[in-house]
């Protein structure tokens, strides 16, 4: 056979390597998709069982404030009112992000627009360090510093949504900051030159052009921060007071979806109403994280410039 013909009709070593690489990466993807899907299916089937098998009312779940899944109400249905926890979760999340966003934007602006290289590197290390601290440490500091602080300056026992929000504020700050830094860096420098050349001051340029152009990115950062705050369990559980009652204010002991889950999951038996009701809470968490993700995607599409 002609040597050239022979050569091009046989697979080369490189082609075979390419094939192996493809198989490897596709199987990794497949594995991850399978894991995500099975988590979803598992949590959903358990979470839905509360309503199908145990006959709890979906309306009660979202709107009633009686959480005592092992007991039965007057209508013969288990008491699975999750409104206090849903309120608690949203309360700490929104407050934490509300506190964190101005600080994050300020820090990010300093890092991208004002600081020298040294200052920027220093702050970079600080924010990365904040991410690396385990949440139990945050919770412990919260317990020893934030709770007494809130008790003295705001009143109440010190346990409650406000303390939870303070602890989460520190925890989400690095996430929001570093994502905001990324979005500010992505603003093309020619916007800045154009603005300065029109006679804008540095501050006017930052305020009217850079921040405005980076707005979709900053919103994304905030939502990632919210997702992080919403899912945080341990640190919040340590400072929120863990009363499954409708919060009367920011200072009364309350609970979040995650804190009830971590407190309760070890004390219930698989397959019982009490256990299933906890899975329903987990389902809400999962759906919320999906919602946060979709929001980020949606902003990313709308905000492209």
């Amino acid at each position, binding site marked *: 056979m002609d040597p050239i013909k022979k050569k091009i009709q046989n697979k080369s070593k490189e082609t075979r390597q390419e094939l192996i690489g493809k198989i490897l990466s596709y199987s990794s993807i497949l594995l991850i998709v399978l894991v995500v899907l099975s988590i979803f299916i598992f949590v959903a089937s358990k979470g839905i069982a509360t309503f199908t098998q145990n006959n709890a009312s979906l309306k009660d779940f979202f709107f009633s404030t009686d959480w005592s899944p092992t007991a039965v109400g007057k209508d013969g249905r288990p008491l699975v009112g999750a409104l206090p926890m849903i309120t608690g979760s949203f309360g700490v999340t929104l407050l934490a992000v509300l506190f964190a966003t101005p600080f994050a934007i300020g820090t990010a602006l300093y890092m991208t627009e004002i600081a020298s290289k040294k200052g920027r590197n220093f702050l970079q290390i600080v924010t990365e360090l904040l991410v690396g601290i385990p949440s139990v440490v945050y919770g412990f500091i919260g317990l020893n510093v934030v709770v007494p602080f809130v008790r003295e300056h705001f009143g109440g026992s010190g346990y409650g949504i406000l303390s939870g929000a303070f602890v989460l504020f520190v925890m989400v700050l690095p996430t929001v900051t570093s994502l905001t830094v990324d979005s500010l860096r992505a603003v*093309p420098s*020619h*916007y800045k*030159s*154009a*603005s*300065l*050349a*029109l*006679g*804008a*001051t540095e501050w*006017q340029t930052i305020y*009217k*052009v850079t921040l*405005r*152009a980076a707005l979709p990115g900053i919103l994304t950062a905030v939502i990632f921060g919210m997702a992080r705050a919403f899912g945080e369990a341990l640190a919040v559980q340590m400072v929120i007071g863990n009363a499954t009652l409708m919060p009367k204010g920011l200072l009364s002991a309350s609970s979040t979806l995650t804190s009830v889950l971590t407190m309760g999951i070890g004390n219930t038996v698989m397959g019982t109403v009490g256990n299933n009701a906890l899975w329903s809470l987990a389902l809400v968490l999962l759906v919320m994280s999906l919602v946060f993700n979709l929001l980020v995607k949606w902003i990313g599409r709308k905000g492209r*410039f």
Partner: protein
Amino acid sequence: MGDYISTRNVHLYYGENEALKGIDLGFPDNGIHALIGPSGCGKSTYLRCLNRMNDLIPDVKITGNIEIGGSNIYSPKTDTVELRRQVGMVFQQPNPFPFSIYDNVSYGLKLSGKKDKEFIDERVETSLKQAAVWDEVKDDLSKSALSLSGGQQQRICIARVLAVKPSVILLDEPTSALDPVSSNLIEEMLLTLREKYACVMVTHNLQQASRISDTTSFFLTGQLIETGRTKDIFVEPQQKETDDYLSGRFG
């Protein structure tokens, strides 16, 4: 002649590197003045001295004397913000903000605290008309400026500069990123502006310089080789380097 813009013995250093080696040049307060020369010859650098955009680059040192309208723009008393309102700049790449057309053109006015909506509306319209882009965009000024074509974007940028009523307009290769039709529109528009404004334009396009400019200056390796009326420079250059460049023997 009593030049409106006059620069004397301007040296500019990027760190150790001397990018401008003593430029003496002046322009009256109207007309189009072309700066030509091969890449890296310092013509854009010179242009950016006139509105102090070089200040933004670290490690830049500028010596010499640059006066606009009789006042030294590098004196410590000069307010760069006010200076840049007087000396507008159009960049090589069209760089409208990612905002609506209206917000782009009114940007400079709002910077200086103008709030009167009627006044701003009027100024936006005149500027867009002056920049010869009004007819194409008047139906929807709330459209994003980024949805326009490159040529339209560049005319929006020119309108944005005109809206603040500068006395000098610096143009840094304003048409080099555009197609010939758009370039032509911008050239025609510049010809209508020459009466009222001092336009200083860097260009790589020699035909463009010869078509629309009143005076031309030829830069080479940080030095001003020759300056004069465009017709004289193109027909009868005095220096050998100019002749070589214009006839395409280098650059």
